[in-house]
């Protein structure tokens, strides 16, 4: 990804440098060549439609190349590959908290394996932050109240800067950290230390502790939809709309169960807004996601609801 961005950047740089240089050259050349000299008077020229059209259309075509190229890169940046390793991220004034699927938790330091796609699923506890790793050429604002997503594919082991790029209060410039890219085998070793509980397992425990399991049963008898095989699939809602069961949908369904009711169910689920932490929420989302990878028991009927907006 970094290479793609750099290639476009260099292309932009070359084109711009050529344009700047030609403008500068012309200005300087005219200024010298047509400086006032005794006896010669300025020659009046009204303008030229042909020229105006030429220097509108040619730049426009060049601009369209910039646009399309930039758009293609952006499209890739915004579309995480399905096989990514996932890291749940909670930003707060002024630190980054990461949690790996395997259960490792880190603060201001993120260990990832080289050669693997990594997807950041991020939310903020307070104000807007922005996850910025210059070396990977990625940046994504982290918003309170919803998930935003970024992904990268690090190739070279090493330690890279992680910055908060959206002004977030007093210690904005202190909200920095590092991304440690490791050789896959070193990463395995790092990962196996500590004996953590996988995030989805934490989620499963919460799922039963909070009583979710009594309604969201793995058969068709529950008062809530069966969540097996739901994640990532379209869900038919009570009002006829269809939404995709993504992270934001699951998050919204836990916090505001009534927002998007699944077709065939009643809005009987209590809200968990303010009752669980962002970390617990992430664990629940990870658990529902893990259920999604299992074969669907009851297609069409899915989790109670939702993702807030986008």
């Amino acid at each position, binding site marked *: 990804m970094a290479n793609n961005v750099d290639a476009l950047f260099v292309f932009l740089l070359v084109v711009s440098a050529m344009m700047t240089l030609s403008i500068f050259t012309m200005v300087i050349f005219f200024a010298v060549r047509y400086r006032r000299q005794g006896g010669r008077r300025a020659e009046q020229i009204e303008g030229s439609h042909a020229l105006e059209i030429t220097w509108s259309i040619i730049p426009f075509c060049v601009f369209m190349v910039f646009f399309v190229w930039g758009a293609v890169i952006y499209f890739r940046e915004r579309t995480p590959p399905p096989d990514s390793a996932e890291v749940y991220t909670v930003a707060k004034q002024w630190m980054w908290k990461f949690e790996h699927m395997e259960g490792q938790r880190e603060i201001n330091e993120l260990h990832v394996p080289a050669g693997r796609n990594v997807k950041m699923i991020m939310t903020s506890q307070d104000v807007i932050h922005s996850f910025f790793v210059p070396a990977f050429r990625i940046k994504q604002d982290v918003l309170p109240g919803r998930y935003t997503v970024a992904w990268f594919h690090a190739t070279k082991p090493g330690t890279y800067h992680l910055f908060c790029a959206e002004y977030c209060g007093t210690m904005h410039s202190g909200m920095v950290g590092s991304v440690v890219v490791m050789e896959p085998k070193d990463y395995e070793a790092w990962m196996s230390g500590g004996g953590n509980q996988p995030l989805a397992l934490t989620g499963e425990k919460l799922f039963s502790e909070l009583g979710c399991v009594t309604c969201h049963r793995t058969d068709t008898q529950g008062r809530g939809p069966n969540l097996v095989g739901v994640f990532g699939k379209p869900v038919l809602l009570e009002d006829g709309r269809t*939404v*995709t069961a*993504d992270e934001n949908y699951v998050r919204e369904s836990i916090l505001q169960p009534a927002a998007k009711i699944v077709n065939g169910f009643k809005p009987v689920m209590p809200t968990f807004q303010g009752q669980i932490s962002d970390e617990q929420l992430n664990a629940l989302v990870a658990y529902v996601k893990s259920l999604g990878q299992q074969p669907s028991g009851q297609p069409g009927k899915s989790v109670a609801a939702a993702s807030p*907006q*986008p």
Partner: protein
Amino acid sequence: MSEHISSITLYVSIWIALLIGTGLTVFAATIDLGPFNPIVALAIATTKAVLVVLFFMHVKYTHEKLTKLVIVAAIFFFLILIALSMADYTTRLWT
């Protein structure tokens, strides 16, 4: 500008039309028109607004094209604000 002097009859008819419009919009809200409820409400509101602009604000009689241009510009830029904002909000759930 409006050297034109409208008749009292005209003003009173517009006034009555506006009152009827108000009644109509309240009535329309109480019946189920499905997705057309807000559309009907906005259509009635726009009709009322047009009546006020054309007759009470004398735009129908002004010989000044500029006034009309100014109104169109206001609506145009307001719609840009709405349309381009909604371009974001309505497509956020698309994948």
